[in-house]
């Protein structure tokens, strides 16, 4: 269980820049999610922390100790991969015991620790099975057991649940969070799934095109994405063009207070989440019309066309509208996030 510090991390492969001057601090015993689309360099960053790759520039620090040049086998940073990578020729017991065996622990200690961790992951009955006899979820739990039994300084999870089906994914998420809390492990979770990152992590780091765009709590990140790029990545939002006038952001939906009080007349973009678009039944003056409707169970998504032609998307479960209905579109003042170019 260590505090991890990444300073100025840059990584290039054959003149292609994969990670650009990253700095990240992960507190001891905390779970941080690394969120980003495929190809943003997340897995590379994990490998850098684990010591499987070396950075082109920068430092990796465990508890303020420079481990940048330390090879993987001395770092005690274990990655659990998407495809679990259990050794196919060893039984579950032998798989889990592997790291302890490498350390030279005695037979008795190994058996005891393996027994304990198998209880924690609730698979003691599988100790003599071979990996190919296990289900997907069981394999993933054993892979976790194999890593956790070593009490690693940091546990690294590389999209570990992508291969599992939805219900299993949810229960595994809870399981991992509980495990991490119980063992007080420093944990870095890599994922492209926003829901997963928000549900599991104490802090979320958004990695786009090799740069860390924002590191924040899930709530802050969701409510106040720092830039248009991050907002676009997090998705499910509308963008409204407008201008800054007299300290307010003015657009089709009205004037909104914002922190960019400077720059009178500057162009700006307002970001409004789907669920923050309020639709009221149009007996009073309407400023919009429903043009499309998609029912998705938990909520219904509506396409709304405003009087001036702007298209908005709204999501709600409260009211039911039909295509063609007139609506009155508003939003709360605080819901509008403004970005200046």
């Amino acid at each position, binding site marked *: 269980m260590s505090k991890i510090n990444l300073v100025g991390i840059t990584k290039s492969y054959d003149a292609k820049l994969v990670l650009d001057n990253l700095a990240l601090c992960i507190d001891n015993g905390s779970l941080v999610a690394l969120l980003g689309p495929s190809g943003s360099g997340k897995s590379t960053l994990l490998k850098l922390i684990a010591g*499987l790759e*070396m950075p082109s520039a920068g430092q990796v620090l465990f508890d303020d100790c420079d481990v940048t040049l330390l*090879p*993987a086998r001395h770092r005690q940073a274990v990655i659990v991969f998407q495809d679990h990578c259990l050794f196919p020729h060893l039984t579950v017991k032998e798989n889990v015991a592997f790291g302890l065996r490498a350390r030279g622990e005695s037979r008795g200690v190994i058996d005891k620790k393996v027994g304990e961790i198998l209880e924690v992951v609730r698979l003691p009955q599988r100790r003599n099975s071979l990996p190919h006899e296990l289900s997907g979820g069981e394999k993933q739990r054993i892979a976790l057991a194999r890593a956790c039994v070593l009490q690693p300084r940091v546990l690294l999870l590389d999209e570990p649940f992508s291969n599992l089906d939805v219900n299993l994914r949810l229960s595994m998420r809870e399981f991992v969070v509980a495990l991490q809390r119980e063992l007080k492990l420093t944990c870095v979770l890599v994922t492209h799934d926003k829901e997963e990152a928000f549900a599991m992590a104490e802090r979320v780091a958004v990695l786009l095109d090799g740069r860390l765009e924002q590191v924040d709590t899930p709530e802050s990140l969701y409510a106040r994405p720092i830039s248009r790029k991050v907002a676009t990545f997090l998705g499910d939002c509308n963008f409204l063009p407008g201008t800054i006038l007299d300290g307010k952001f003015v657009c089709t939906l009205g004037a909104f207070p914002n922190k960019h009080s400077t720059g009178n007349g500057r162009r700006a973009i307002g970001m409004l989440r789907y669920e923050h678009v309020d639709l009221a039944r149009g007996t009073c003056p309407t400023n919009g019309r429903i043009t499309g409707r998609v029912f998705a169970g938990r909520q219904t998504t509506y396409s709304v066309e405003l009087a001036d032609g702007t298209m908005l998307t709204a999501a709600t479960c409260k009211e039911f509208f039909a295509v063609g209905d007139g609506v009155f579109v508003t939003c709360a003042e605080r819901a509008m996030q403004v970005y200046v170019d």
Partner: protein
Amino acid sequence: MNGRKQPYLYIAPLVIFMLLTLGLSLGHAISGLTWEHLRAVLANRDFTHSLTATLGVAAVATLFSNVIGAALAFALLNVQAGKEAVRRTLQLPVIMPHLVVTVIVFHLFAQTGVLARLAWWAGLIDNPNQFPLLVFDHFAIGIMLVYLYKQIPFVALLCTDALRGISHRFGEVAANLGANAWQVAAWIYLPLLWPTLMATTLITFAFAFGAFEVPFLLGTPAWRTLPVEAYLLHINIDPTAQARAMVINVLITGISLILALVYSRAERLLAHYRLGSGDGV
């Protein structure tokens, strides 16, 4: 991992070994090369006859074994029951040493062999000399039979494996679009099989071209294949003969190197195809 410099360390023992053995052997042969010997060899009628005959035998054997082998592989595509058993039996000729196959061919096809006896029994011939000369004959039929026995299964097995790697979804889609069995085979599978066939053609040709034991034992006294010719010159004490042997060996090596280069190109195509087809869809 951090194996940037390491590959060269890992491959060094093998590279050194191969370069030493092959390099020294070739180097020695080349060092003894002179223009006069080269000209003498090329002018020698025995040599030219031997060269053309060897190429001819190799070409014919290669053609037949690849065509029949590929056809056999296609036939096996449509066989369901007992496919595994047939595959197992086909592995037998591949494993059998060619010396043993030589013995068998001799036994079956010689003028006093099993086929000749069957012919006598059927009343077709009266004495052994009437049975056509199939072994030790001018057209190297016995030799080719040995090659065919070993190479048809070899090609068939390799093609079967390759075809298995090609997703049968392609065939289903093609059939869905209205193609009959022949069209599917010719337009879908055959082109996808092409790199494998290129590889097998080269291997079988190289083997037939360079084989020693089989033509040595079953060849006619009238002419010898090139490797045998080189050998007979090599064991001749006369230094001129030995020099000629070296020339022939260098020429053989040259031809083989060209074959090897073509083969490695085919291998690269094969890798490209392997990644592209049969994506397990």
